[in-house]
């Protein structure tokens, strides 16, 4: 596993600790907010923060236990959480997905989806445009027929649909 270690982008230990700390902070936030809205006994029963306070405290306790265990376990440092290659692959999917989701509002669902599928086929699948165009457009048209016409569930539309008079 020499290679795997060298190519590792993050060890399990580092990620485990990072996630446990993040969870602890989230728990602390819950505790803080529960005190803000009142976690004691009000005039007519428990206040709004009564139940979440315990939830927040349990999050803090559980994440502390995870953190302590991770800090003590030295074997985890050698284990790779994600290799550089894997991380690269994941980012090539995650980044376009974030862009896609951000484009839905300005471009409309169907145009954004067509571009997204086309990008995937071009970048990951290395298809020719002669194959990309019919598949990506065909899928979006199929979704349009299913959702707008068959189930009459409207999805966000943009300038393209306006130009085609489909709004």
């Amino acid at each position, binding site marked *: 596993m020499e290679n795997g270690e060298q190519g590792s982008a993050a060890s*399990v230990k580092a*990620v485990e600790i990072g*996630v446990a700390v993040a*969870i602890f902070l*989230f*728990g602390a*936030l*819950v505790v803080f*907010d*529960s005190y803000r*809205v009142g976690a004691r*006994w*009000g005039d*007519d*029963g*428990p*206040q*709004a*923060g009564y*139940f*979440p306070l315990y*939830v*927040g405290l*349990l*999050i803090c306790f*559980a*994440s502390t*236990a*995870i953190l302590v*265990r991770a800090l003590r376990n030295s074997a985890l440092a050698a284990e790779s*959480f*994600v290799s550089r290659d*894997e991380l690269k*692959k*994941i980012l090539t*999917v995650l980044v376009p*997905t*974030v862009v*896609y*989701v951000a484009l*839905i*509002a300005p471009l409309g*669902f169907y145009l954004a*989806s067509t571009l*997204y*599928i086309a*990008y*995937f*086929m071009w970048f*990951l*699948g290395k*298809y020719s445009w002669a194959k990309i165009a019919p*598949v990506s457009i065909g*899928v979006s048209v199929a*979704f349009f027929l299913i*959702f707008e016409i068959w*189930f009459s*569930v409207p*999805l*966000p539309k943009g300038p393209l649909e306006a130009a085609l008079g489909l709004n």
Partner: protein
Amino acid sequence: MEEVNALLQGFGVALSPLNLLLMFVGVILGIIIGVLPGLGGANGVAILLPLTFSMAQQPGGTTSAIILLSCIYWGALFGGAITSILFNIPGEPWSVATTFDGHPLAQLGRAGSALTAAFTSSFIGALIAVIMITFLSPVVAGFALRFGPPEFFSVYLLTFCAFVGMSGGNAAKTIASMMIGFALAAVGLDSVTGTLRLTFGFTSLLKGFDFLIAVIGLFGIGEILETLEEGLAFKGASARINFKVVLETWKELPRYWATSLRSAAVGCFMGIVPGGATPASFMSYGLARRLSKDGNDFGSGKVEGVVAPETAAHAAGTSALLPMITLGVPGSPTAAVLLGGLLIWGLQPGPLLFVEKPDFVWGLIASMYLGNIAGLIVVLTCVPLFAAILRIPFSIIAPVIIVICAIGAYTVHNSMFDVYLMVAFGVLGYAFKKLGYPLAPLVLALVLGDRAEENFRNAIKGSQGDLLVFFSNGLVGGLTSLALLLLFWPLIRAGWRGVLGKS
């Protein structure tokens, strides 16, 4: 035999042409969902749930809607076996154990018998679980009619403690995941006091987090990311089932009756106690290996090694609906999504459902029998078609699945914010899965959080803040004690072993 009469009436409801059509549509959709990476029972049902909103408003529509959704669930259970056996890729976590003997069988050229054995034992497991539901659920519901807030809270407590004690994973991670679910459920307007909780001034958080969005992101996007790094080469055995193979396998199957019954029992039990289908399938595979005559050959392609996990997984998946319809406590994430559906359609799941909506309940139970028959017919006849789906290249199917997830997330509330949330949940799901945080407790806590809190508040309001209300009578005390027993079960067992070891 009151149940039998009620069931016959249920068959009357379920056998209408529309409902029969929906059953086949649901099963086929479910198998496709089960076969595709990134889509499974829970998020598949969650994505399709908004499409039933208008259907449920017609008279008798809620029954049709639940039949459609529950049949998607059965289909997804069947579909997981196809990918495990042919491609050695478990489409669902509960079909991991099916790969142990299923894929070797396929490599030996016996894919047909492996698939037949898997489908038939799935069917038998489900059938046994449905029979149990038929006779046990009225009893449980009748019992639960006497429940007040303390009893209901202790049932929730039992559910969540069972997760911690029975899941076998890291208890701290289970608790962390579950409590994050509860905290997310608390976000938004508190219905009792009218206070805003955990919103920090963001108006988009006023309505809180919808668990459907969490399910779609955690299971859908998270799984696509995970599949991506494992590499994308799908090399599958060819899938042909002809009638001769089916008959030959059916002749062989009665030999494993003991394994079937034992696995079904394990499955039914694990399904009701929220441990779920996945541990049930591993447990019964392990039991079968230990108890079978040719246990040592398990893993090299034994039909019995397919029978055991499939029977248990399907029995557990089916019996997870028993606490859902009788108590309103789902036993699995998919059951939780179905429960969410009932709430959206305006039905209150719980013991009163049997009194107020007998048509709905018994129609659903009857459809469980029929849906599984429909499922068996569809899978036995159409396996090559479904296997072909997996031969679609990943670079096409992955973006299409993410687009479907985005549509599903958007249509829940027609809100773009939900789509952004879905992506965030996807990243969370990926990290959690890789670090061994279980996702099911998070989803269940998110679903049940509000009602657990409401019952907790009402219970301690009645007792003026005295927590001993959860031990105030035999019923609630028994439930709470059982919950605590399950919570500390790993410690108790370890202690017991220590005592035995020393003496």
